[in-house]
């Protein structure tokens, strides 16, 4: 049975176990999505947007939707191994897409703020849920439809007008099962109203050996003058599949800082879209991925400049070892109305071995005449002269290489605003690449 028919068939079982939830607005969305999924196909490499990423290994398997799979238990002690620590944060924990309240910890928050799970949010803030869910997605793919069809939960964060949430919100997603190949479908929603501020860290961790598929959609609405920092640190199992669409929608004078840090996954695809629909908006997209073995990571960014006087800045860096394959596609549209746009994009890659490859493509479509846009891509190796310099001080070759890797990643790492997070990401870089830590 092909995977599409499998999922459509599984939807029937899935519906049955939803009980009361099957009469909700959310469930109507699910039903519409599964219907649409029936009509579209999963992308192939013939599709320009998926030219370098062959998803056959994902769609030739039938992953059991996590709500139909055996539940797994995670202890509080285990959690400590996965969370980023050393700083104050609110914690939300999801295991295979389901909220675990007992492991989560929400500290005191200003009035009317919602930090929790989507399932509760749809009941408590029904209108906000209806007004924002599935509203801004562009280029909806079969994977996005699959997410909407099976999504049950994910984080929901609502920051009302003029509220600043001081501590970052860390959302830990623990994925995988030792018994089955499962499909995990987190659905995340962040709404930052006028003049508000919030910082969120999505921390994806794989824990069990069996192959699984994380298929995620995150929607972020940033109103006038609001500032959102959104960190995604993806550390899934190296044999897992991970596809996420992050869709942001920004209003005037808002700031969106997105940090996309990838370690894990056999096939990974990130679509990071932001629409700048107002004047004087800023969007910063930073990316860093360190991969090895046969890992394949595809980062597609799409910055849509719809209004004048905005700026966007993108910096993506890849460190590729062994036989890994990287893809970067940076699309920027500057619409006719978007005069005085400043849009910058840079993609830099180092290949640590002969077997590693990168496909990089800027895609600028500019319809306004008074704009400043630039893009650049470089691909190289660790610099031998630099390596010689370090070794000539008595430092062994492997450590010299580590220092140069750190040096390469530095300008992305430096953008991380939480010092302890920066340190822990630094540690993960060397751990994941099997290099000596500096």
């Amino acid at each position: 049975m092909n995977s599409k028919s499998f999922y459509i068939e599984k939807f029937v079982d899935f519906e049955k176990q939803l009980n009361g939830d099957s009469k909700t607005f959310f469930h109507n969305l699910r039903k519409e999505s599964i219907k649409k999924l029936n009509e579209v196909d999963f992308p192939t490499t013939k599709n320009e947007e998926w030219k370098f990423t062959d998803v056959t290994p994902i769609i030739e398997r039938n992953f059991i939707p996590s709500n139909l799979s055996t539940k797994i238990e995670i202890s509080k002690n285990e959690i400590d191994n996965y969370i980023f620590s050393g700083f104050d944060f609110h914690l939300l924990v999801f295991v295979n897409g389901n909220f675990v309240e007992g492991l989560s910890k929400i500290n005191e928050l200003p009035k009317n703020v919602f930090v929790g799970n989507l399932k509760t949010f749809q009941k408590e803030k029904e209108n906000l849920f209806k007004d924002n869910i599935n509203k801004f997605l562009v280029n909806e793919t079969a994977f996005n439809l699959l997410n909407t069809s099976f999504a049950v939960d994910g984080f929901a964060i609502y920051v009302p007008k003029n509220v600043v949430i001081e501590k970052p919100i860390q959302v830990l997603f623990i994925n995988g099962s030792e018994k089955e190949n499962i499909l995990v479908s987190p659905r995340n929603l962040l709404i930052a109203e006028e003049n508000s501020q919030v910082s969120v860290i999505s921390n994806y961790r794989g824990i069990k050996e069996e192959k699984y598929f994380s298929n995620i959609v995150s929607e972020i609405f940033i109103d006038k003058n609001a500032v959102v920092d959104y960190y995604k640190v993806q550390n899934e199992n190296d044999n897992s599949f991970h596809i996420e669409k992050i869709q942001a929608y920004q209003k005037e004078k808002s700031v969106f800082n997105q940090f996309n840090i990838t370690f894990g996954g056999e096939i990974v695809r990130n679509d990071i879209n932001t629409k700048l629909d107002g004047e004087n908006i800023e969007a910063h997209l930073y990316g860093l991925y360190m991969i090895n073995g046969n890992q394949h990571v595809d980062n597609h960014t799409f910055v849509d400049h719809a209004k004048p006087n905005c700026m966007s800045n993108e910096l993506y860096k890849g460190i590729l070892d062994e036989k890994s394959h990287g893809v970067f596609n940076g699309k920027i549209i500057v619409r006719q109305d978007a005069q005085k746009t400043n849009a910058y994009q840079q993609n830099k890659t180092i290949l640590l071995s002969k077997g590693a490859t990168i496909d990089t493509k800027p895609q600028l479509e500019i319809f306004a005449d008074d704009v400043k846009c630039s893009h650049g891509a470089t691909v190289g190796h660790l610099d031998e002269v630099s390596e010689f310099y370090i070794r000539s001080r008595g430092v062994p070759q492997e450590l010299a290489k580590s220092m140069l890797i750190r040096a390469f990643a530095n300008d992305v790492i430096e953008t991380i605003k939480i010092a302890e997070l920066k340190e822990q990401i630094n540690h993960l870089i060397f751990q994941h690449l099997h290099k000596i830590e500096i």
Partner: protein
Amino acid sequence: MLVIKNLKANVEGKEILKGINLEINAGEIHAIMGPNGSGKSTLANVLTGNENYEVTEGEVLFEGKNLLEMDPETRAREGMFLAFQYPIEIPGVSNATFLKTALNEIRKYKGQEEVTPKEFLSLIKEKANLLGMDEAMISRYVNVGFSGGEKKRNEILQMLMLEPKFVLLDETDSGLDIDALKIVANGVNIYKNPDTAFLVVTHYQRLLNYIVPDFVHVLYKGRIIKSGTKELALELEEKGYDWLIKEEEMENV
């Protein structure tokens, strides 16, 4: 301390060093001068083990050991130090981390205990002060945002920290104003002692006003064509290299 016998080396298949013979003893300062392209930098790189330079003939003994068989880090641990003409920048790695790593690698090699962070910090502060360096440089990333002079001074700081037996200064004076030059030379003069030796590679004589050599050698087309004392450097400053080159060519006829 260092004995070079009939050393020949290629860069990208082209022979640059065509038979160098040189002996340097502890306590001595030697200068190698010569016009551009004479092979000065090649000699420095070959001695410190840059793998882009291929030794085709000859041998180099460093305290009786075969230097050419050692990788660059082993040479450093045995006590060799090259102050680079163009020191590199390492963003993300602080001067302190870098030097502590290097120092401890060298100490481990010698069978000594590693320095504690506290010992290290007081040591590096002491040396930085000797060179009139701002202590803030200790926590800054290696050479990132440093001026040309600061980079060269940082090389000398590394030398003072790692305490090598043999120091090679590769065009250390290039791009430096007189004040920076004096600071660098001062660092060398503070460090010089009867157990250390220096080889100063330079295009110009002016550095040798501050680091006074015991011997001066002129390198031309990959060979030492004349050796003498510090007066030779002054003579070169006055008359240039042409008279020597002519003499050399006459002899070859």
